[in-house]
């Protein structure tokens, strides 16, 4: 069965080359048939890679352990949905998955734009297919998921052997969240290839107006939103599975996903300056190139084993190829950019320091510094080893020292920027817009001081959250009130209609509000406390204003694991508020019997009680060791993430039109509207 996948890959390799050749030749010879053929070939590649990944899924579902990738990443006892998620559980499969997503995006892009941008599209197809070609060659020649188990070294048997059972999926990855987190991250990474392809096509064809930006705006925002969701899901998984009480550790692989996200954030904001003022054209192309490179680089970091990480895969030969590809893509795109500089002149001048465009400029500056600091911290071991021969590493304090102030400054800009006028904000408008938010911020700061908050960054983040939150609510209130008076709608209808009629602006505000909530959640980190204790049945332990009481130990088992769990009663003020069930499990097929913790968390909006059972401390199994954390405000991180996602989705919606009779003109109207929206 694997031959089907192998054959599909080989065919995809050929068709990809054909697609590029046909597209480029089509332009040269001005032959529309060739161009159309190149486009169809791109769709065909999608069908072929789909066949390949479908084959891999089939092999997993039928537990065909003759294939080494299946044998290493699955076993018979694994539930079906985990068998499917095992596709991206290892290097070969996850690369195939990356390549597959790219072909999906490519097919969508070429079909969506088959009648538009006729000069640019053949180049867009070529750039997308060029990236695809790199991945298809990796699948075929370097990291082939359809490799058969060769006879083990040292035996006389030639040919193939099929182990009785596979080695299983890492138990930590046997979590519903892990079925969805990697695909989301990958969808985000790969989505950043689309704006890159359009930017390159714009450079090549010298069509450097706003067309490429308008065409890719939704793609970029969707990719950015999905990537952010993927990152948060990863944090959510870590928090609920790993048992160290947190959700972000500045691990190289986390950093790898954060870097393209930071660049994407900068890009989403700076394109507005180009649309509105015709400025920062070069800069926007640089950002798109960097986002693309960071996405590929992130994949390289995760998959090559160059950095030490809990995530990273074993050292492998793919690193060199990735590096070569990155260098090639970087030099080609920057060569093009430099060659086309004369076509990228600014159409306007920078406004005053207190203006909308300047807030965008500072936003971009510090997002870039943030990305650079993350890159430096992540690559420092490799760089210092290369330069001095000593591997120097940095950890959380370094990243926190740079990126926490940056984050708070960004939050400040989030509140200020959207309220500043383009060119120059007048003193009067400043007073009018900022009086109430500043008053609320000051009040919050005072209350926090009285409450005993002395942690400077946490205090600043909360004060800034109050400032930004108020200014956003005020914007909605102001707009809705004006609309309500004009249309006679009630206030809430006005809020909804206001948002739907200018989705980009108000969706943006909602996304910003999501950030405010995220900051509230993050600031909770300054107030965590934790403690370890040992307890038997009936013993109690006090932490903060909670009492924990161990009520019993009981065995548990599931389809692919056995283990123990503890029943712990959680009391607050003498009353029982919850039963918690922390446990430990041994998963089948994991080679050596390795126990993993099942964490119990009681989550409320105010604080989480996070309980880890570390195992029995006596042979009778009547006494256990525990680690308990009190984590304030964590729930707001997840809530903020949801609000951020919601805002992004709203910003992606087309604006609702005033009256149905104008529907015919929708296309033209939308283009005009998009060019003139404020946010």
């Amino acid at each position: 069965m694997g031959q089907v996948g192998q054959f599909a890959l080989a065919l995809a390799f050929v068709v990809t080359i054909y697609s590029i050749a046909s597209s480029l030749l089509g332009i040269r010879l001005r032959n529309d048939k060739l161009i159309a053929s190149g486009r169809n070939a791109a769709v065909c590649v999608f069908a072929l890679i789909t066949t390949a990944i479908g084959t891999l899924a089939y092999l997993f579902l039928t537990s065909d352990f003759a294939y080494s990738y299946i044998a290493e990443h699955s076993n018979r006892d694994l539930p079906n949905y985990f068998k499917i998620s095992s596709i991206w559980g290892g290097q070969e499969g996850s690369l195939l998955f990356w390549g597959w997503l790219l072909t999906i995006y490519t097919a969508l892009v070429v079909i969506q734009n088959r009648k538009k941008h006729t000069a640019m599209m053949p180049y867009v197809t070529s750039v997308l297919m060029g990236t695809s070609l790199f991945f298809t060659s990796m699948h075929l020649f370097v990291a082939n998921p359809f490799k058969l188990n060769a006879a083990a070294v040292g035996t006389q048997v030639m040919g193939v052997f099929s182990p009785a059972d596979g080695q299983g999926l890492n138990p930590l990855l046997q979590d519903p969240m892990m079925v969805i987190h990697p695909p989301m991250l990958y969808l985000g990474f790969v989505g950043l290839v689309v704006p890159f392809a359009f930017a390159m096509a714009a450079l090549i064809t010298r069509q450097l107006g706003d067309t490429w930006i308008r065409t890719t705006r939704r793609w970029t925002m969707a990719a950015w939103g999905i990537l952010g969701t993927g990152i948060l899901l990863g944090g959510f998984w870590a928090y609920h599975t790993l048992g160290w009480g947190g959700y972000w550790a500045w691990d190289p692989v986390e950093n790898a996903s954060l870097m393209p996200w930071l660049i994407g954030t900068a890009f989403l904001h700076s394109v507005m300056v180009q649309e509105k003022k015709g400025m920062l054209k070069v800069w926007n192309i640089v950002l798109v190139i960097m986002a693309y490179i960071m996405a590929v680089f992130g994949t390289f970091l995760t998959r090559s084993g160059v950095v030490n990480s809990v995530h990273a895969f074993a050292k492998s030969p793919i690193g060199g190829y990735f590096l070569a590809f990155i260098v090639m893509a970087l030099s080609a795109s920057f060569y093009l950019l430099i060659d086309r500089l004369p076509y990228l002149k600014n159409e306007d001048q920078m406004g005053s320091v207190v203006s909308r465009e300047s807030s965008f400029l500072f936003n971009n500056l510090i997002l870039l510094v943030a990305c650079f600091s993350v890159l430096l911290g992540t690559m420092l071991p490799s760089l210092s080893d290369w330069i001095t021969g000593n591997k120097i590493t940095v950890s959380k304090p370094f990243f926190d020292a740079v990126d926490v102030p940056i984050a708070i400054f960004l939050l400040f800009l989030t509140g200020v920027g959207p309220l500043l006028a383009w060119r120059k904000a007048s003193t009067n408008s400043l007073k009018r817009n900022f009086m109430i938010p500043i008053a609320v911020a000051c009040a919050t700061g005072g209350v926090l001081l009285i409450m005993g908050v002395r942690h400077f960054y946490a205090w600043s983040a909360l004060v800034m959250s109050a400032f930004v939150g108020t200014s956003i609510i005020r914007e909605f209130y102001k707009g809705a009130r004006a609309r309500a008076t004009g249309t006679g709608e009630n206030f809430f209808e006005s809020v909804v209609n206001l948002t739907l009629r200018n989705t980009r602006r108000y969706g943006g505000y909602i996304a910003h509000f999501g950030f405010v909530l995220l900051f509230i959640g993050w600031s909770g980190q300054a107030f965590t406390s934790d403690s370890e204790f040992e307890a038997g049945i009936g013993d109690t332990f006090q932490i903060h204003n909670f009492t924990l009481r161990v009520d019993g130990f009981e065995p548990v088992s599931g389809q692919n694991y056995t283990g123990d769990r503890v029943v712990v009663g959680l009391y607050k003020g003498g009353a029982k508020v919850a039963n918690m069930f922390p446990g430990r499990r041994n998963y089948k097929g994991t080679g050596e019997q390795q126990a993993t913790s099942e964490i119990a968390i009681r989550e409320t909006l105010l604080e989480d009680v996070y309980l880890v059972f570390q195992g029995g401390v006596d042979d009778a199994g009547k006494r256990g060791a525990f680690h308990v954390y009190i984590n304030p405000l964590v729930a707001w991180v997840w809530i903020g993430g949801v609000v951020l996602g919601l805002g992004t989705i709203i910003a992606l919606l087309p604006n609702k039109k005033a009256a149905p009779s104008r529907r015919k003109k929708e296309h033209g109207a939308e283009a005009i509207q998009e060019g003139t929206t404020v946010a």
Partner: protein
Amino acid sequence: MKPKQLKFLVGSVLIVLVLIYLGYAGFKSSMSYNQTVSEMLASKDAAFNRHIELEGDVVPGTIKRDGKIVIFDVNDKKDKQKIVTIRYEGKDPLPDTFRDNATAMAKGKLERSGVFVATSMTAKCASKYEKEKAAGVVVDKADLN
């Protein structure tokens, strides 16, 4: 240069300088040398004055627990004769992956006595590749008949 541009330039430079300073302070407080057992032993006296992230494989059967303190030996991946004793005094419990043969990454300092005192630890199971080879041979023999 126009005054407006100058303002932007000064503002940007100030921001970047502050961040560089913060980064440098953060770097100084958290930098450590990532070394294998052999590398640390080879660096002689210099090893006593640095924060080190020591990488080594846990020697089977050497793990001893004394309350929260865990004492064990690690050897170099390539040179099994090079051994260092680690005394873990960290606040956090050791990870699930910490056991015989696991690759330990211990952060801390080498004391004059030759014992490495660690305050934080991560552990990885032996790399996939090695595990695969070991498992492969066993499975193969079982499968031949």
